[in-house]
């Protein structure tokens, strides 16, 4: 029951200036098995600028899509090391160098008592890097996205799965790509315009 839907808005907008630009094709799938099949087909067809969208992380889809592991852990490691060194230097600077305080007859710089704060600084910086690194790599916050013009796409956070192929992909051809998506179980394919 595959149907190709031309959104009304596209023709409407085309009459105005600037004309609506096709940014990609959006294909809807009903379940996890269908999105796997579609992802493998799109990957095998040689597309590079495309993505799957789902209401929850579908395990194994990365592999089906051929997504490489993210470099986020390395960024977080750097953040953690920054926190570690920062915590160390902060305490040395404050208590042993800039304003030396003798506590309980201990040497001015005695590492064991400084470990808890070094640990906390490491965790703090790592966690901040993990969250903001993830958002930055994902280009979030993204306050405008032409995908959200599609009413169909609102179900992406509920119960439907989508494949979006970007029009800027070198392999992209509107009719051929539509056929490919429809042939792989899409219940609907529509154009995404901006």
């Amino acid at each position, binding site marked *: 029951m595959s149907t190709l839907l031309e959104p009304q808005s596209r023709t409407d907008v085309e009459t105005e200036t600037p004309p609506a630009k096709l940014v990609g094709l959006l294909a809807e799938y009903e379940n996890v098995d269908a999105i796997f099949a579609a992802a493998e087909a799109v990957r095998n067809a040689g597309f590079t600028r495309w993505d799957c969208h789902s209401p929850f992380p579908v395990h194994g889809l990365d592999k089906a899509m051929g997504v490489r592991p993210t470099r986020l852990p390395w960024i977080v490691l750097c953040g953690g090391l920054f926190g570690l060194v920062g915590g160390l230097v902060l305490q040395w600077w404050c208590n042993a160098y800039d304003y030396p305080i003798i506590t309980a007859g201990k040497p001015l710089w005695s590492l064991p008592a400084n470990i808890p704060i070094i640990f906390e600084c490491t965790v703090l910086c*790592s*966690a901040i890097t993990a969250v903001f690194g993830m958002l930055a790599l994902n280009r979030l916050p993204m306050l405008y996205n032409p995908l959200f013009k599609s009413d169909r796409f609102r179900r992406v956070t509920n119960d439907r799965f989508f494949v979006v192929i970007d029009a800027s992909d070198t392999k992209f051809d509107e009719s051929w790509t539509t056929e490919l998506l429809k042939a792989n179980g899409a219940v609907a394919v529509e154009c995404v315009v901006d």
Partner: protein
Amino acid sequence: MTAIAAQYLVDNTSDDPRERPPLVLGGLDFNGVSDEVCKVSERKTTLAWKVCFALSVSTLGVLGLCILYLVTTGVGVWGNNQPVGWGFPIVNFVFWIGIGHAGTLISAILFLFRQKWRTGINRFAEAMTIFAVICAGMFPGIHVGRPWLAYWLFPIPNQMGTWPQFRSALLWDVFAVGTYFTVSLLFWYTGLIPDIATLRDRATGRIKQIVYGFLALGWNGSNRHWHRFERAYLLLAALATPLVLSVHSVVSFDFATSQVPGWHTTIFPPYFVAGAIYGGFAMVLVLAVPARELFGLKDLITLRHIDNMCKILLATGMIVSYAYMSEFFIAWYSTNHFEKFTFYNRAFGPYWWGWCIMTFCNAVAPQLMWSKKMRHNMWAVMAVAICANIGMWFERFEIIVTSLTRDFLPTSWHWFKPTTIDILMLIGSFGLFFTLFLLFCRFLPVVAIAEVKGVMPQAHRHGHGHGNGQDGAETAVTR
């Protein structure tokens, strides 16, 4: 199978290892899960919520007035004296920070252990953590006496050219609690992003669309985004796990690094962490049991979730009981006169009643949870959970007050009696906690929608060994 029939037919509390019990009941599909969770924040404000909120806000108001009185008058309004310089504010601080630990345990440690049932309860347990840490952080902030100088706690350049003393356990506490709050907040918000996106896409009103749209940061469920999201989530869990263990350890260092008898013991870090998890799980139960009734979340927070939490309550209660016994044994075994006296005084001294409440609530009451019948009786569960919260508050009271009132020299002994302000501020902190919690229940998804969907049988590809035996009714789509 209709939803109602399924709810009563499927018993997911079976411990038969040959089958994995389903985590979502009522025959819900993905849309059903979204509906069940979102309706809590989408429907009209109920009368029950309004009544609870009015009560909480009034109690919060009492706290506000108490703080105003305290700041304008001075810390003399409390029962704190010489030698009990810590008193109620620090008892409350340790109590609230302990409550928070269960949320992180559920969201981080159970995540690393691949305990999929956590998805039903992790969201509001995390919210509970944040609100508990806010309540906790308030007390040392006002306990410093001159709250407008509380910034001295932080290494901020100041006009005196001085810096904090980093080798003090109290400063470790500032960093531990500050880090804990920040990381818990980040962890919570990260998990919320996809679910706020669900609310955004379901929202009909313009204001809701804008607010949820802003908070969801433009989340569109992209698999490349999910990939990094999951990695970040795993990293946060891996970071939060040692962090949560460190926080209550550091809180226990406040005591353990001193020379006061009853405080100066090496058992304190694990004992405090176990106690925190015990008290925290009790608070999760106190919130979860009414919430699943009131919000109709019984298909998502199932009997099995409650059952599992009761088992954790029992296990940690036993660890705490063991620590109590160990303290007494070591006091006797040490042959240290002061240590022996402290523990004799704790059980038979002027605060014997506090010790009895603590022992009954933390060591005796959870024993009910051995019985499956009791674990499935919500009244019994609530009674034990409330007992555990009372018991954990009295544990901190006993540790702080009995040790300080009678230490080495009888000439410096003194009695501690809380004032009305002390008691009102304790009650008021519950007002703050419940006000924040009720606001959270009203406007944000109380269950992690995306995570629950991810542990449903339909979330896995068929015929690739990912199914968990629950999807026999589903037919694999031929490809």
